[in-house]
């Protein structure tokens, strides 16, 4: 966390990108004649975008950054299990990502006089916790992926706005074509985001338990995949000594 305070990229992640997306979202969605749902997407969308961006990118580079700094070997040699250290870093990324809501909510309130039209506090808090868990699992899973296969970085980085689209951060995924909704359903944050926005409106279905369960189940599936990837990282680092060359 301390390293992030002096990194210009970290500041871009929690301050600049979410504020810009929030501004665009609010200009586009917060117009005369808008529906309460649209206002909610305008108010929260930028923050969710920033939260995701920091969590997956900052958390995803958890192993890579150690490699770049030349500290990967020391971490492997430490008595603390590698995955425990990475889990700590991923939690740090998720906490750092939450900062994204500070500038975006401030912009919505002070710049556009927009607030979430209706809030079911309990459901919102629980949905946000589920979303954070899903981000944590994604970050934890991307870290070994980025370290093992460098090609994954430009592909997933390039697809960043695709995640915004499929996770429904700034508009509901139900407006997407059916085939795209199929891909969206495979992403844990999509279900948690659906629950978050449902908690900001009194209309529509409120299948919170179903959405939370789907998000948690998918997140756990990501953890299983991550466990397999960490074993691969471990083997490359300890047995073949190839991790630094990957």
């Amino acid at each position, binding site marked *: 966390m301390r390293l992030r305070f002096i990194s*210009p*990229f970290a500041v*871009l992640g929690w301050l*600049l*990108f979410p504020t*810009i997306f929030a*501004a*665009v*979202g609010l*200009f*586009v*969605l917060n*117009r005369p004649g*808008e529906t309460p749902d*649209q206002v909610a*997407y305008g108010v929260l969308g930028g923050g969710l975008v920033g939260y995701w961006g920091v969590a997956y990118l900052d958390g995803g580079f958890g192993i890579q950054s150690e490699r770049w700094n030349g500290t990967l070997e020391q971490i492997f040699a430490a008595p603390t299990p590698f995955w425990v250290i990475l889990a700590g870093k991923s939690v740090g990324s998720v906490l750092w990502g939450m900062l994204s809501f500070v500038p975006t909510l401030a912009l919505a309130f002070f710049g556009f006089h927009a607030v979430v039209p209706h809030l079911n506090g309990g459901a919102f808090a629980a949905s946000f916790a589920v979303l954070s868990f899903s981000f944590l699992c994604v970050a934890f899973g991307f870290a070994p992926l980025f370290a093992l296969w460098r*090609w994954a*970085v*430009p*592909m997933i*980085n*390039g*697809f*960043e*706005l*695709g995640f*915004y*689209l499929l996770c429904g951060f*700034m*508009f*509901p995924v139900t*407006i*997407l074509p059916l085939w795209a909704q199929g891909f969206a359903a495979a992403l844990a944050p999509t279900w948690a985001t659906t629950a978050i926005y449902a908690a900001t409106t009194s209309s529509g279905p409120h299948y919170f338990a179903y959405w939370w369960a789907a998000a948690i189940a998918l997140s756990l599936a990501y953890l299983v995949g991550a466990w397999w990837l960490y074993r691969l990282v471990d083997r490359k680092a300890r047995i073949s000594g190839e991790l630094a060359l990957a």
Partner: protein
Amino acid sequence: MKTITNQAGIFVRSTWLQYVALFQWATVRGYIGYKLVLPITQILFFVELGVYATGRHNALYFALGNAMQITANAGIFGVIATVANERQFGTLPMLLGSPANRLVTFLSRAIVNTLDGILSVAVAIALVVVLFGLNFQHASVPLLALCVLVVSITTSGLGLLFGSVGLVMRDAIVIANVIYYLMLVFCGINFPVSRLPGVLQLIAYSLPLTRGVEAAREVAAGASLSQVSGLLAGELVVGATYALLGYALFRWLENQARHGGLQEAY
């Protein structure tokens, strides 16, 4: 005449060398990720956002705006990286020590990225037509191509300015990110510039892309060259201003380096 031929030769060689030496980030996977996947998902995201907010009938507005903004991907990211990489790769002292015409070598940094920007927009517009079934039946395709060309040149002008800043800054790519994404807000990509507060409108019209996007939208609606020539001329003036400012900064930094022996410090 011989001088012009010589300078043209330097320009072509410099353009080629900067492509093979400084365009190194464009590996196949990097190119697919950052030059195809990123622009495509950007268009899809903002078109769907616009459709959600304003209805399917406005899809062309968002699609065209974002397709044009993709030129800035090459013009800003590409050019800034190309100029600033001289410092990263340790070739800046050699460049500063060479007798080659500075303006020629400086401008050659933008050429490949300008062409790359045009290619990116062509792919983006083709995609928009296929995915959203948008038609340009009222538009003059050559005139739309002219808009794309002009915007590619002008965004490269802005890239040259901030690329020069990158000569004395460690994380030039941070500047590229800031500029590229701020253009989403200021340049009328997803909503009209008139919705911005007055002061911000001034900033919007002092940036490249704003007039170019406006011209492209008018062309798509059936405007002729005479109707958009003012916008395109304004766009070119803005782009040229940034390129000249960039060149002046480049020369100033060069002189500072020479006087202080600071080439390596950069």
